[in-house]
């Protein structure tokens, strides 16, 4: 459990001019925790680009908001629930979904899509495999339970396994909502004398200190100390959503904020500090589920499904009526004041009295040392022993191993548990490069992609971050969307270690460079630090969520749909070498190793490729489209074949087979088409290569290079290997 440091305690004393009460100490501890105050990351986050013509609300609010035309806006954000998901996977993941959904609808937007980025320890880990399986099952069913019952489609995500997540799984959830420009609400307590109203679930002793727990490493002691588990009630959240949106329509609500981390403390002080006002309230009015709760416990409880709102004085009844209709508690607990103080009473007696500004603006800010090389647990060159293993390989067997590996196999076992089509907006659900939801009654759709390849980040955090942004934007472009804005979740280890802090700083700076280059300003995000268990830090894992806009239309499938189409590799074969093979899935699955550098990214070329592929797909010139990412060319071919028919591919390259087939150089897209000439013309215009590499055919995927046949495999075999892998590894095939 993180506590205030002695200098922080000193600062509290000097701000208050006296000793804090027990409740005040609790309030400062959570508000100044890493989770709430971003004290280690704030000075670096300031570097991020946050503006464009479309950005209506940038970082700092509950979610970022961008304009999408027609008077419509979207709000979106990503949030982590890593620690709780380790302690209790089902509830931890479920309440993670609940939390991010509240962030969206507290701004007035109706959530229309969720995506999840998951990281687990390997399912076949000798020591932790069984526990990892239970965590996977728990997390996926928790997300499924909450999202499905709330009624928001979970339209995609990603799921990766590495040993560094054995003791520290990651659950990052992205949510996106839609509303009109004039329906936007803020978490501001404006209007002196206005009533402060508590709505939703009763307050219990749940998750007390969740925020400060999320700011400390796991120790044996913390694991034994488990009363922090919060239980989510998605049904209550659905009622809360409908009631809040309906109450907002009355015009009687002035400001509204969800109670997330640090519950009542955070919502009251943030609403006050944003508006420059104070809030004076009495805990005796707070609906309570448990008996004899102390002021400290009520202020720090993280019971779920609660909101705080400020109404226009005299119009409370309109608000109460709406909440009553939906069967929810709504009670006035205090008023907005002009003195800027957070004043908490318990049956009239003041138990805490703090300037709101002191909690928000005076929070500590650290420039933690980072002038060292980022922590890097891998050699720079390919270990010599691998050279021998690379000769005379059976590339067909390697491809099957990759297609059936836990990172690359079909994630159907996961996403079929999610209702990815409720509310009938899902144009493209899980399974495509990007997911697409249409905005009803407009011609616009939103495409979205989550990515975060930590193998690249651990080898070079700056280049890794750029590659992630590039991949997200490439995924969006492949379905025809223009990337417009981003959110990010920075999952790192202990920032008090300079080599970890260096990873964080390098990653943030890489995101900056790439987001400027690809014109996707960051509108918000989340930082999750101290992802370490028993001294073992996770790899640096920045996860980007990027959204794009497109005219509503069905995108091309990934699948090769029919015979005798030209197979085209837009962007060409690309350069490759063995140093840059070290971060690939080939290195991981086949050689069980990691070394070297991530694939080389030319951001100018990448951006030209995005323009070219958008123009090509939007002109309706392709029968299928799929970008190259993990696993490289051969895996992309296998995926397009497994979902459709096969192909006969003839390459002519001097690259060694493992490089040719499996290098992960970016800036490449695989197409099938009957209109190669038109595609080549568009590609030439954008100065991008368009290489005709083969023809689609039924039954088999065959890859030749010159006179050598590298791969020859049954499409049915590819499909079976990909589709059955995950359930098989989870040992559920026979359950």
């Amino acid at each position: 459990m993180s506590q205030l440091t002695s200098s922080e305690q000193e600062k509290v004393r000097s701000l208050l001019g006296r000793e804090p009460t027990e409740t005040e100490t609790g309030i400062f501890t959570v508000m100044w925790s890493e989770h709430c105050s971003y004290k280690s990351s704030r000075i670096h986050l300031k570097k991020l680009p946050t503006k464009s013509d479309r950005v209506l609300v940038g970082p700092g609010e509950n979610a970022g908001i961008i304009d999408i035309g027609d008077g419509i806006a979207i709000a979106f954000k990503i949030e982590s629930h890593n620690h709780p998901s380790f302690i209790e996977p089902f509830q931890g993941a479920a309440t993670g979904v609940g939390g991010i959904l509240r962030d969206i609808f507290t701004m007035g937007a109706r959530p229309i899509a969720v995506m999840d980025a998951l990281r687990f320890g390997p399912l076949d880990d000798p020591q932790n495999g069984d526990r990892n399986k239970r965590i996977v099952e728990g997390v996926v069913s928790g997300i499924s339970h909450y999202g499905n019952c709330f009624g928001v489609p979970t339209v995609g995500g990603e799921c990766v396994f590495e040993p560094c997540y054995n003791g520290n799984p990651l659950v990052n959830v992205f949510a996106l909502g839609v509303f009109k420009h004039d329906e936007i609400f803020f978490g501001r307590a404006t209007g002196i004398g206005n009533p402060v109203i508590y709505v939703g679930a009763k307050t219990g002793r749940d998750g007390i200190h969740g925020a400060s727990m999320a700011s400390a490493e796991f120790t044996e002691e913390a694991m034994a100390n488990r009363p922090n588990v919060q239980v989510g009630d998605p049904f209550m959240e659905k009622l809360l959503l409908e009631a809040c949106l309906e109450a907002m329509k009355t015009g009687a609500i002035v400001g509204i904020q969800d109670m997330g981390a640090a519950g009542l403390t955070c919502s009251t002080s943030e609403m006050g500090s944003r508006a420059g006002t104070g809030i004076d309230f009495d805990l005796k009015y707070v609906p309570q589920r448990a008996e004899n709760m102390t002021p400290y416990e009520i202020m720090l409880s993280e019971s779920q499904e609660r909101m705080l709102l400020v109404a226009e004085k005299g119009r409370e009844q309109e608000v109460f009526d709406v909440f009553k209709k939906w069967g929810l508690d709504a009670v006035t607990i205090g008023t907005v004041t002009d003195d800027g103080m957070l004043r908490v009473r318990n049956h009239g007696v003041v138990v805490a009295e703090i300037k709101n500004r002191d909690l928000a603006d005076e929070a500590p800010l650290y420039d933690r040392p980072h002038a060292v090389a980022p922590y890097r647990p891998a050699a720079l060159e390919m270990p010599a022993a691998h050279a021998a293993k690379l000769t005379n390989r059976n590339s067909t067997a390697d491809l099957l191993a990759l297609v059936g590996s836990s990172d690359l196999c079909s994630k159907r076992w996961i996403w079929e548990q999610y209702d990815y089509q409720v509310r009938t907006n899902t144009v493209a659900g899980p399974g495509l490069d990007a997911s697409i939801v249409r905005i009803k009654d407009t011609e616009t759709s939103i495409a979205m992609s989550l990515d975060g390849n930590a193998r690249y980040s651990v080898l070079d955090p700056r280049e890794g971050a750029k590659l992630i942004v590039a991949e997200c934007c490439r995924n969006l472009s492949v379905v025809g969307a223009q990337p417009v804005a981003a959110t990010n979740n920075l999952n790192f280890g202990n920032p008090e270690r300079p080599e970890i802090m260096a990873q964080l700083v390098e990653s943030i700076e890489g995101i900056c460079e790439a987001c400027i280059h690809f014109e996707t300003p960051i509108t918000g995000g989340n930082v999750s630090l101290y992802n370490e268990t028993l001294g073992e830090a996770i790899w640096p894992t920045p996860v980007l969520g990027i959204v794009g806009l497109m005219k509503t239309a069905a995108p091309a499938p990934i699948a090769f749909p029919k015979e005798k189409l030209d197979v085209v590799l837009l962007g060409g074969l690309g350069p490759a070498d063995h140093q840059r093979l070290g971060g690939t899935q080939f290195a991981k699955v086949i050689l069980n190793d990691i070394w070297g550098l991530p694939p080389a990214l030319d951001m100018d070329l990448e951006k030209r490729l995005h323009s070219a592929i958008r123009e090509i797909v939007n002109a309706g010139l392709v029968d299928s489209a799929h970008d190259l990412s993990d696993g490289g060319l051969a895996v992309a071919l296998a995926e397009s074949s497994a979902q459709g028919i096969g192909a006969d591919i003839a390459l002519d390259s001097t690259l060694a087979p493992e490089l040719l087939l499996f290098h992960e150089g970016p800036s490449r897209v695989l197409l099938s088409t009957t209109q190669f000439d038109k595609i080549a013309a568009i590609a030439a215009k954008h100065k991008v290569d368009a290489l005709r590499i083969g023809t689609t055919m039924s039954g088999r995927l065959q890859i030749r290079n010159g006179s050598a046949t590298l791969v020859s495999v049954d499409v049915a075999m590819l499909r079976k290997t990909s589709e059955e892998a995950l359930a098989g590894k989870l040992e559920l095939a026979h359950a």
Partner: protein
Amino acid sequence: MARVAVDVVIKPEILDPQGKAILAALRRTGHPGISSVRQGKHFDLEVDETVSNEDLEEIAAHLLANSVIEDWTVTRLDQQEQVQR
């Protein structure tokens, strides 16, 4: 062969949304005399004589219940006696 019942309930301090919803339904359908409902799981096991009380306790704690949020009791039905921890 013996019959064993294991009852698993959510710990008292932890929210039980199911129980809450059932209680609300009972209120609406005219049962004001019920003041609390908690929903849990019930398992009926058939075990042979090789299964000791310690085995049962371990099965309940590790497989049937989630000790982070649930409590449990193990009862041998033929003896109507609760297994002590």
